[in-house]
């Protein structure tokens, strides 16, 4: 264990957990109301970032306007996906729905490549890369206090991501639309029988997921650049969702932080073998969760009846 760098890696890991939590939130949003696990979330994230890039760089709009326009576009995309791809699948078995979102991810990937190309792009910097924050920790190593260097974009991405999760959580908890969505998630037929228009609720969920994905995409692109591999981030968000619990919004924060922390901790190791595990750490955690507590930390345990 590299003790001198440990606090740095722990904090960086935790900060990386913020965008992970936001990405995971998009998955939870859809799962909560529709019982669909969206394998195409990565492509939504990528398209959101590409929309922003296109408006800001190619069309020359100011950044704030490009982000707003991209949010509108991705919300429309979410609506469209629900209407034309997922609604025909209502009532179909799990396999068909899983494959539908997988097929959707392939198709969206192809579309992104077709319209935007696969080149690496310069995404506009939202937070300055210079002047990282320096924090002196109370830990002493070789008589010197350990100083942690925090990049501005990591810190602000984290703050925005956590704020985003909290806002969406509050929306679910305190607004009428949120209440309707929670009601729909309990039982689709029951919700319909008391007059909820569940297809509109599903559409809103998908639109919200598109918005959240775009936010995540912008945050990730501004700190790590924009190319087609951006969608891979979601593969690390799947374990976050399962760890936090598939239906739990607070679970995404806890899960995101824990997964980020686990990656940070193994990165601090002095053995290269253990350091290398940081890329599969989310999936090791996932296997452990599946074996010990499949419903996740805050998920609902379901009882099956014939």
């Amino acid at each position, binding site marked *: 264990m590299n003790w001198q760098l440990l606090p740095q890696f722990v904090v960086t890991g935790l900060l990386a957990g913020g965008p992970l939590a936001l990405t995971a939130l998009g998955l939870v949003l859809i799962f909560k109301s529709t019982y669909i696990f969206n394998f195409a979330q990565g492509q939504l994230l990528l398209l959101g970032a590409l929309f922003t890039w296109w408006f800001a760089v190619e069309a020359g709009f100011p950044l704030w306007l490009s982000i707003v326009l991209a949010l509108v576009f991705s919300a429309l995309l979410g609506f469209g996906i629900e209407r034309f791809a997922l609604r025909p699948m209502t009532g179909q078995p799990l396999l068909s729905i899983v494959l539908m979102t997988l097929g959707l991810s392939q198709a969206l990937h192809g579309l992104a490549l077709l*319209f935007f190309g696969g080149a690496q792009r310069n995404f506009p910097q939202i937070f300055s890369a210079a002047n990282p924050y320096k924090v002196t920790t109370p830990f002493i190593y070789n008589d010197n206090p350990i100083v942690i260097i925090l990049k501005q974009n990591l810190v602000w991405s984290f703050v925005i991501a956590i704020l985003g999760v909290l806002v969406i959580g509050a929306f679910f908890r305190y607004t009428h639309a949120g209440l309707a969505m929670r009601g729909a998630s309990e039982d689709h037929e029951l919700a319909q029988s008391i007059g909820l228009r569940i297809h509109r609720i599903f559409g809103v969920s998908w639109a919200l997921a598109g918005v959240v994905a775009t936010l995540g995409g912008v945050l990730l692109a501004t700190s790590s650049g924009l190319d087609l591999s951006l969608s891979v981030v979601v593969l690390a968000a799947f374990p976050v969702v399962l760890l936090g619990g598939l239906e739990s919004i607070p679970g995404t924060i806890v899960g995101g932080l824990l997964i980020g922390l686990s990656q940070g901790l193994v990165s601090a190791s002095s053995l290269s073998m253990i350091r290398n595990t940081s890329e599969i750490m989310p999936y090791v955690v996932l296997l452990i969760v599946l074996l010990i507590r499949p419903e996740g930390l805050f998920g609902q345990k379901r009882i099956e009846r014939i």
Partner: protein
Amino acid sequence: MGVPRPAGEFDTTYAYDMATIRRNWQWWLLIAFIVSLYALPFYASQSIVSLVNRIAITVIAIQGLNLLTGYTGQISLGQAAFMTTGGYISALLVNLAGWHFLAALPAAALGAGIVGLLFGLPSLRVKGFYLTMSTLAAQFIIPWFTRNIFPDILNGAQGVNVRVPFMFGIEFNSPQKYIYLSLTALVLTTIAAHNISRSRLGRAFIAIRDHDLAAELLGMNLFKYKLQAFFLAAVYAGIAGALAAHNIRHLNSETFNLNNSVMYLGMLVIGGLGSNLGPFFGAFVVEMLIEFATLFGPFFITLFPATAAGAVQALKPLFFGVTLMLFLIFEPRGLAHRWQLLKTAWRLRPFSH
């Protein structure tokens, strides 16, 4: 099974009732088809031979997936990872230990099967979507191992060069020769898959797929059968992976990736889940789509200048994804079902039933 027959045609013996191929002319047709495939190198161009070779290997992988996903109903996103396992085992046995290819192939199948069992273990506790996630974990963890353990043997991310199989005095170094290996393996795996699917084991798989709780209440050991399904799927993947590795002669952790796993699942759905013809239809149609994308790529470049050289790369996932979605919406039972309907209509002609 299940295809209505015209009135007046009865099964007079048990052998006739159980027969897969019922008529003499069907036997002749099948033999003619297989012979025409084996004779392919004599009359077809190299590109067609290598395409058929690739399809044959893909079909083997999908047959395994069909046993696990189509018959047992357990969705697996890890088929490509088990192919990686089989490929590496066979490559190392032939390269380093100097094994005969015919000995390395079953070893690869068995090794992949055991790894498949390991990742099937979560099926003790979880099912459905959660199980899919554990197979997804296999898809990340197995390639990671090939990149990070024994770097002096496995060469890390660079991967290993795989030797060409040398048997019976022939070096299988071109698609024209390799196709005999692939087709022979395909014939054997098809016979095996067909007989598994109509035996006690296959019926147990179907029962689990249709209602696992009911199957358990009937006294079936769910865990045992699910593990057997995982094992069989991984064995098929191991065979396919070993064949593919010796065919392309190079193997690294990205040769069979998550995308391949998704493609195999998609091919299976397009072809028809839980049908032994499904893997053939699916692999053929999707490979044709990809050829089509390659053919039309240059034309699309003029339409979308942004992509330029990447047009082909963009069209492949686009065509595949859209086809898969259309099939899920309009024909979720796949082409095999269409084929059944067509055969029924032909048999009952000129009456509709």
